[in-house]
């Protein structure tokens, strides 16, 4: 303990240079932990974009494409399937609910989702039920009601009760306004950091009606027998039955359907992003190595300034290994304070940027204690710092007890 105190006071006496070292350690620790954090949180947010959905059912094809299109509204449109399969799906025993998802239209560039009322009660975003900031969800399937995602409402400045026109198609290219369709904003959702924020919701009937307009006049068919959907979200009474249900869906005669577990498909997708993830990791490792070299260099330079101090210790009878320990203590002190500060820095950065990440990237970040993975990496960092600090420490060890103690004789 005495040596720890001596190391501390000694470091305090040379605080200028060491402070910069502590700061640089802090920054690189913050970067490293930040990269870990972003990676983990992106993955979780991605996986939690829809929760509560056990299977996504769509036309046979690429499971990843189906999830990307029907959940994230990105990528190529998948083949549509007949809306009437809803009944066949409900007939499968463990199935608790089925929510249709129709895609393909857009409103000012935001995807329009045709769905049922149940969408707003069944689907969870980031593990939480959908909530409205104003108005109500689609209540009457026979009305041309619109529910806006939080970002859509914010960017278009639309208020509840306003009339809007919904475009057919992707919203780019030749204008095909359904301007005579009298959609009215019924509700606005609270932001939740998922693709739902950027979508516009209407009832399946209204969605079908949009397409009927081309065939003349706006009208609701009682239940359009030709109605097509992009996918069904399916919830089960018992999640354990998911494999059996998936088999039964695949086996529905003449349907050409497949059931995809969102988590599995997203994991597949995630593994393709490993390259970018590794690039980030390599960059942060580079920063870390620079820091470690910096600490070593600082210790070496400060050793020159400490010649006299170390010689005094030797003169009083300190053994060389005690000087070695003194230098190692200092390296330990720098790295531990740096790590603590870096962690704090990251928490502040997360607090300040959480809103931005959530609304702009759909990534939910939160402050919290370091994970085991973080701790292991930090432990590795401390060990490497100590190993590198051995170079100046051994130099201190060898430092001869010489005439540093007296002024040059005249």
């Amino acid at each position, binding site marked *: 303990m005495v040596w720890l105190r001596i190391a501390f006071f000694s470091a305090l006496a040379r605080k200028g240079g060491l402070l910069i070292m502590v700061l640089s350690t802090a920054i690189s620790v913050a970067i490293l932990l930040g990269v870990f954090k972003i990676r983990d949180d992106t993955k979780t947010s991605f996986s939690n974009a829809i929760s509560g959905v056990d299977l996504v059912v769509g036309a046979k094809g690429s499971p990843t494409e189906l999830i990307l299109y029907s959940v994230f509204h990105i990528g190529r449109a998948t083949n549509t399937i007949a809306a009437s399969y809803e009944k066949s799906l409900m007939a499968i025993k463990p199935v608790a609910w089925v929510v249709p998802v129709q895609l393909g239209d857009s409103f000012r560039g935001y995807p329009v989702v045709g769905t049922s009322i149940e969408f707003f009660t069944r689907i969870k975003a980031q593990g939480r039920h959908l909530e409205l900031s104003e108005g109500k969800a689609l209540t009457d399937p026979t009305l041309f009601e619109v529910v806006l995602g939080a970002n859509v409402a914010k960017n278009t400045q639309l208020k509840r009760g306003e009339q809007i026109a919904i475009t057919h198609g992707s919203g780019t290219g030749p204008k095909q306004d359904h301007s005579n369709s009298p959609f009215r904003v019924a509700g606005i959702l609270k932001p939740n950091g998922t693709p739902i924020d950027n979508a516009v919701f209407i009832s399946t009937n209204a969605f079908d009606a949009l397409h009927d307009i081309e065939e003349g006049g706006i009208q609701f068919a009682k239940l359009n027998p030709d109605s097509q959907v992009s996918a069904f979200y399916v919830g089960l009474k018992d999640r354990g039955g998911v494999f059996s249900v998936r088999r039964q869906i695949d086996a529905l005669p003449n349907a050409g359907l497949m059931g995809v577990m969102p988590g599995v498909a997203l994991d597949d997708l995630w593994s393709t992003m490993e390259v970018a993830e590794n690039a980030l990791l390599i960059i942060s490792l580079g920063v870390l190595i620079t820091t470690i070299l910096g600490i070593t260099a600082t210790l070496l330079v400060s050793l020159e300034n400490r010649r006299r101090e170390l010689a005094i*210790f030797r*003169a009083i*009878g*300190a053994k060389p290994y005690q000087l070695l320990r003194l230098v190692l203590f200092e390296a330990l002190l720098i790295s531990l304070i740096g790590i603590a500060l870096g962690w704090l820095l990251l928490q502040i950065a997360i607090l300040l940027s959480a809103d931005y990440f959530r609304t702009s990237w759909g990534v939910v970040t939160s402050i919290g204690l370091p994970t085991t993975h973080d701790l292991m990496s930090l432990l590795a960092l401390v060990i490497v710092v100590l190993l590198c600090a051995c170079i100046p420490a051994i130099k201190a060890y060898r430092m001869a007890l*010489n005439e540093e*103690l007296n002024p040059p004789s005249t």
Partner: protein
Amino acid sequence: MPPKRGEIWIHGERLQDLSRSAVDRLRGEEMGFIFQQFNLIPYLSVADNILLPTHLYPERRQAAIAEFGSLDLALTHLLQRLGLAAELLTQAAHQLSIGQQQRVAAARAFIGRPSIVIADEPTSALDWKNQTQLMDLFLSLAHEQRTALVMVSHDERLSEHFDERMTLAQKVAV
């Protein structure tokens, strides 16, 4: 640094025969040093500076405790003997005046009853009045603790304080 000629014997042991760590031990455990330039650790408090040898060598600590009951009491005693105020204990060494620094250096050399204290021109940074005063203090401390005081000085006036004197003839510079 080994001598070029001659031999150094301490406590019946020839220094050149000892291992480096044995020399370190001998230096820390049996000896105290007072330098011309004091050589206190500037950032440590007066108390920490004086206690350094006791931190390094348990024998020095035990000797101090055996003599005064505790390290704190040993500190107060030494400070009092050397005419330093007790408030100085918590001050950093670099804040002290030159005379105070040299007294602290002496306390560091004497704590825990080393058998030999070697003083190299300990008073030459001080004025004459302080020199004699300090010399008296050093000698009475050495006497009290039964510590041999070996002093190197160019000032022949100080030699009258000592039992044995040696004059080193001026050698030709190399």
